[in-house]
Structure formats: C-alpha cells, structure tokens
C-alpha cells in the first residue's frame, strides 16, 4: 500500500521482526512506517469489538497503532523509531499476558 520513492538519500538497513517474521526497514523510520512499508496494514484488533485496526494518524494522536515492542505492550508504533533486532508483535484485543 506504500512504497519508498526510488531516489531517496541512503539510509542504513534495519532488521526487525513482526510476530517472528523478519522485515527490513530504514534507519530513522518509525515502527508504524516500517510495518506499512512491508505490507502490514492491520497491527491489532480492538479490545472492545475485536475489529482490525491499522495506523491512522501517524503522529501519536489516535492510538490505533498500538503494538507490543520487545515485550512491552501498548506502545505507539508511530512514535517509536526502529532499531536493529527489535521484536514487534501485533496485539489481539486486550494486551497479551506477560510471563
């Protein structure tokens, strides 16, 4: 649904996983941008009705992009910058229980 422009300034490749699957992003991108650019549109289902949601505002307002990052649930994917080795999990309804 989104693609990077062909003639961008060079940015380092950053590798992260989404539900265990490896994806590539560019340094400086937000987690939400990285997800959208690798074709992940739905990042969670809502706790109220279980409806699917994806990033909506990209500026930290709507909280529709909530994901679990490195084990910490309910983080705004659009406000967190990608890091190598980051583990992102999509959230089902209310957050998962921690061990």
């Amino acid at each position, binding site marked *: 649904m989104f693609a990077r422009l062909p003639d961008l300034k060079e940015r380092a490749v950053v590798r992260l996983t989404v539900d265990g699957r490896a994806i590539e992003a560019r340094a400086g991108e937000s987690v939400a941008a990285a997800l959208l650019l690798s074709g992940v549109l739905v990042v969670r289902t809502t706790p109220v009705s279980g409806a699917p949601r994806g990033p909506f505002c990209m500026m930290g307002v709507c909280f529709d992009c909530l994901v679990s990052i490195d084990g910490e649930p309910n983080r705004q994917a659009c406000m967190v910058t990608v890091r190598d080795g980051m583990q992102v999990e999509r959230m089902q309804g209310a*957050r998962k229980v921690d061990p």
Partner: protein
Amino acid sequence: MTVADAVIIGGGIQGCSAALHLARLGAKAVVLEMAHAGRHASGVNAGGVRTLGRHMAEVPLAVAALEAWHRIGDLVDDDCGFESVGQVMVAETDAELTRMRSRAEDLSHAGFLHEEPIDSADLRRLVPAVADHCVGGLVARRDGAANPFRATLAFKRKAESLGARVREGVRALGIERVPGGWEVDTDDGRIAAPAVINAAGAWADRFAAQMGDPVPLQAIAPMLMVTAPMPRFVEPVVIGGGRTLSFKQFRNGTVLVGGGHRGRADRASQRTVLDWRELSVNAESACALFPIMRTARVVRAWAGIEGRMPDDIPVIGPSGRQDGAFHAFGFSAHGFQLAPIVGAVIADLVTSGRSRLPIEPFRIGRFRAAAG
C-alpha cells in the same frame, strides 16, 4: 420564596439518597446542588461497595447498606452497575494475617459474619495473580463495586420521580433560623422549610457552623488511576492489608488503582491537583502486589474532593444545637457504599426523630471540645 418539606444542601449521593427516602415517606425535599449531581466525590469515586475492614462503628450501617445494594434495582430502578464480585484484603506478612484473624473473631462475637479469614491457597484461588509473598487475607464475599456516577444519577432520578426537586447550578449561600424552621438563601432566591439537611460534602463545615455546630472538617482529594485494558486477571476488588491500596479490574479489562493517596483540593475553585509523589507510592504498592501491573499503562489519573473528619468516620445525625437541622457529611473517603442506608436514617430522623440503626458514634457533638 419557595416552600418545601425539607431543604437538602448538596446533590451528591448522600443528598440524593436523603431526598429519595424522604419522598418515600411523603416528604418533598428540594435539593440544592451548586454544580451538577455527582460532580464531586459521589461521581468520581472508586465505586467500592465494601463492608470489609470498616471501622467498628460503621459496621451495622455498612452491613445494612450492603443488603440495599443487593436489591438496588428495587430502590432506584437501575442496577447502578453493581456487581457482587467480593472484596479481598491481602496479608503480606504473618503479623498482618494474625491481625485479620482476630478482627474476624471480634466481628463474629458482635454477631457479624461477613468477613472470613482465608489462607494462602484460598487467596490464590480468589486472586491468582497476587504476588508470591502474600500469605492470606480476609474476604467479604458479598461486597463488590458499582458505577458511582450512574448510581448517583439513579438516586437523583428516582427521588425526582417521587416528587423531590433537584436544583442543579444553584448554590446555597447561607442558612438562617426562622420561626417554625429554616430559610436557606441561594444565588437563585430563598427557600423555607421546617427541616434543613447538610449534605454538602467537603463544603459542609460552613453550614454546620451556621447551625451552631462548628467542626474540624478537612477537605481532602483522594486520587485514582485507571489503566488501559489488560487481560482479565482479577475478579474481586482487592485492598491492601499493610498498605493503602485498592485495586479493581473492570469487565472491559481496565484496572482502577487507588488507596486514598491524596492530592491537593481547592474548595473555592472546586478543582484538584494531583500529587505524583503520592501516586508514585500508590503505583509501587500496586506493582508489589501484582507484578503484572508494571507494564500496565495509566490512561488517566484524577482526584475527587471529599470531607474528612479527624477520626475518619462521618457525621450523621441531628444538630447538637438546633431543632430541624441534620447532618450527613464527612464520610472520610468511604461514604459511597453507605449512601442507601444513610439516606434512610436521615429520613427517619426528619420524619420521626428516631434512627433505625445505631448512630451515636457519628454525633456531631463529639468534636465540641476540639472545635471550641
């Protein structure tokens, strides 16, 4: 000049309950509420319907009130979101557990069986997510929680349907003794009635003084925090034995964390300011009892303005000085649960001069020496 059977100052749950019970006895009250019904303590509290761990003097009222909560629909035509999920007090040390056991014993000697001691295994059955070090506790199985604003509104609506008038946005400015009763001056005219009831919450000391009953009331601002939805991990309301903590998870997964930690109350502006140093202690307690809470996200914190008495029990009863004047205030952060019964007691007192339950410990005269 308006005339009524009684004027009630304060449209919190206490004022609305008094109006409702008076109406049931055929007396039409006018309730004066400077903001809107439930704007203050009654609408923003934790909704805890708790007999567990009450001051001994409050136990008879609390037990009677609990019965009323179980049949709350009969009283106000709404279930008020009441759920009898039980309340559990957690003991973190053996010393705490011993204290709880002897308390349950004392209560049973007095004829009250609603608090049961539980051991560590029982505790884990009731509250599986509790931290490993907890050793047992006390449970009141019929306790629970309700939706405070909805409950207050239900009391108000039912009172109105039975003939009471709730005048929102009308402030009582002062009261004056007149032959045969009282006149209350408001910012929207005067009202006369044979009886006046002071249910003005954290603002009640002013009217008490005008009735000749000065009291050392302190306006406090207990704070609460609520989190984003968590997986369901606790059913009953949980309170701390050794620390001030109250903890409740709603059906939608959100968790309410409180415990009477106080912010700043400003009665004049009707606003509160949160104190994060205090909430931090509260948060630490919650994480200590429920390690799963560490990564829970706090979505909002707030405080309500409440009247507190030096001995942490309310003032309920007639004026010590004047006929036709009654008090119901100073609930010291646990008056929501008592409302269905306190309203009935006040209505008894206004109409017959007698109370159905013992209210001696709550008499206003107990502060006479202190307040001068």
